[in-house]
């Protein structure tokens, strides 16, 4: 028998009110925890994947689309750029490292990326099993791809044209798995890497069917070759201003900065997050009000209980604490439940998410969530403060002597 037992028994006695209050708090906290978790995870993904990439050069179009397609592998590319222009940029003195990307095919929704060894240097990749690709049509799988597709070293598969779906399968050439990457916790887990030549080969085949190539024609085609984008790392931060302007003004390509575009993207999502945040705070406010009203109303009835406890020897401060404790117990339970709901909901959302690149999970926690518990405790304290103050006003002698 202690305060906890007395409080919880009393709460159980008023089941419906208690449940309503707990649910209100849980909803508020749940929404806030989903927001915290989701925005942290999205932010982390955005940052992790764009790490070390100062600039993306691609075809003219939406800069955001260019960033999304070539760094996060979410959207479609803006188009292609001539390979020879790209190679010119790659050898610009301001460029420390330039990674060419050739996109266009997928396997079961996982993008096949044609690139070279600079890509693995950029992301610091190493293989878990097997080796990196060397020749045309050899691929190295990201760890997630390997797990979900079940492909093993030595297996071969056909890529499909386009970035999603299995519609137009390139049956002429099969890719062969040479290696599997170590899990990086970033976008490379979801990619299939090969050399640019393989991507060309896939798409040239259609022309080759009817024609016989002359050496001259082939040479011309190589000169006309295109790639999708270039990921660029500067030699010095000074280039931030000069280089993009140079690309945008003097070439037919566009340069987009991942930092700027992610910030822009986040400010777009931010409006929605802000709205939801206010909505959650509003719910928490209602919860506080509801707890206040139910405790305050219950005081009329509980006056006798509390007077009896005074008679039995409890001091005013002890009973004050008892009433406060009840309010805090409700909000604390609600806050814990809210966190569970938040995590479960996010895990559920993650399970239904189609794009594996931006998958959300409820199985991680962020430090801000402890604040949510704290906020719950504060709300409980505030809501029960005024009802608890009533203790000091109750005239026990009059309450108990009066016929009730």
């Amino acid at each position: 028998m202690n305060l906890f037992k007395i409080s919880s028994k009393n709460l159980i006695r008023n089941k419906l009110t208690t449940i309503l209050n707990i649910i209100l708090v849980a909803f508020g906290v749940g929404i806030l925890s989903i927001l915290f978790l989701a925005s942290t995870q999205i932010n982390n993904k955005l940052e992790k994947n764009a790490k070390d990439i100062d600039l993306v050069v691609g075809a003219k179009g939406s800069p955001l689309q260019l960033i999304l397609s070539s760094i996060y592998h979410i959207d479609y590319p803006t188009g292609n750029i001539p390979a020879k222009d790209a190679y010119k940029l790659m050898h610009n003195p301001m460029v420390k490292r330039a990674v060419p990307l050739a996109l266009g095919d997928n396997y079961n929704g996982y993008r096949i990326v044609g690139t070279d060894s600079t890509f693995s240097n950029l992301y610091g990749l190493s293989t878990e099993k097997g080796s990196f690709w060397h020749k045309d049509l050899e691929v190295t799988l990201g760890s997630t791809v390997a797990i979900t597709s079940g492909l093993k070293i030595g297996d071969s598969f056909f890529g499909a044209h386009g970035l999603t779906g299995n519609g137009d399968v390139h049956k002429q050439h099969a890719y062969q798995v040479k290696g599997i990457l170590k899990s990086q916790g970033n976008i490379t887990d979801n990619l299939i890497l090969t050399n640019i030549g393989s991507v060309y080969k896939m798409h040239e085949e259609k022309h080759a069917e009817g024609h016989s190539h002359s050496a001259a024609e082939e040479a011309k085609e190589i000169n006309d070759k295109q790639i999708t984008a270039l990921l660029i790392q500067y030699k010095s931060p000074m280039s931030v201003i000069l280089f993009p302007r140079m690309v945008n003004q003097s070439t037919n390509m566009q340069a987009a900065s991942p930092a700027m575009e992610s910030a822009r993207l986040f400010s777009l999502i931010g409006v929605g997050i802000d709205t939801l945040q206010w909505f959650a705070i509003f719910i928490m406010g209602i919860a506080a009000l509801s707890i206040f009203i139910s405790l305050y109303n219950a005081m009329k009835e509980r006056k006798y209980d509390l007077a009896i406890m005074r008679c039995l020897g409890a001091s005013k401060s002890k009973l004050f604490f008892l009433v406060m404790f009840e309010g805090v117990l409700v909000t604390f339970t609600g806050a814990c439940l809210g966190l569970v709901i938040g995590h479960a909901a996010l895990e559920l959302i993650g399970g239904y998410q189609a794009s594996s690149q931006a998958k959300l999970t409820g199985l991680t926690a962020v430090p801000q969530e402890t604040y949510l518990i704290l906020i719950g405790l504060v709300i409980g304290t505030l809501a029960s403060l005024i009802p608890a103050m009533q203790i000091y006003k109750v005239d026990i002698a009059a309450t108990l002597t009066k016929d009730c």
Partner: protein
Amino acid sequence: MIKISSLAHVYEKGRRLKFPCWEIADMEQWLLLGASGSGKSTLLNIISGLLKPLHGEVLINGTDLYTMSARERDRFRGQHIGIIFQRPHLIRSLDVLDNLELAAVMAGLPIDHERNLSLLADLGIAELAKNYPDELSQGQLQRVSVARALVNRPDLLIADEPTSSLDDENANQVIQMLTSQAKDNGAALIIATHDGRVQDHITKTYLL
């Protein structure tokens, strides 16, 4: 031993009430008689430390109730005085046994499980230990409230109009129960009443 002297109380409306001196030796049983509105409840509240008098003192075992701090007085009441109200106020969210334990906890004393069970057995309600107040009859509730008043082995048992709403037979039983329980537990007893039926059992009277 309980002693009150030169007690006076002023009501909100300005009516002033003086109480004659009163000495109660250990284990004595007294009736506090007086018509309705004569100040019986007021005096009981003063004796039990719930109502601070205008002046005068209440000594229980040599301790002056109203020189203590409010917190000490609350605790002293819990440990030394058992109060039985006209209506048996029990905590509705707790079962009978928990209500008894509450008395010990609130007074800051250890829970004596054996004693609680034997008290219930003495009062003939042992089988109700796990029932909630909602499930008991008025008579049973009254017995539980007597048991609760005795939990902490008080020096003084105070009952305010315990028989007013009972018929002859039940009133008789309650008086029997109070007098015998007070005796068995070594407590002095004060019964405030204007009920003539009680006077057959207790001879010492204090008249207001």
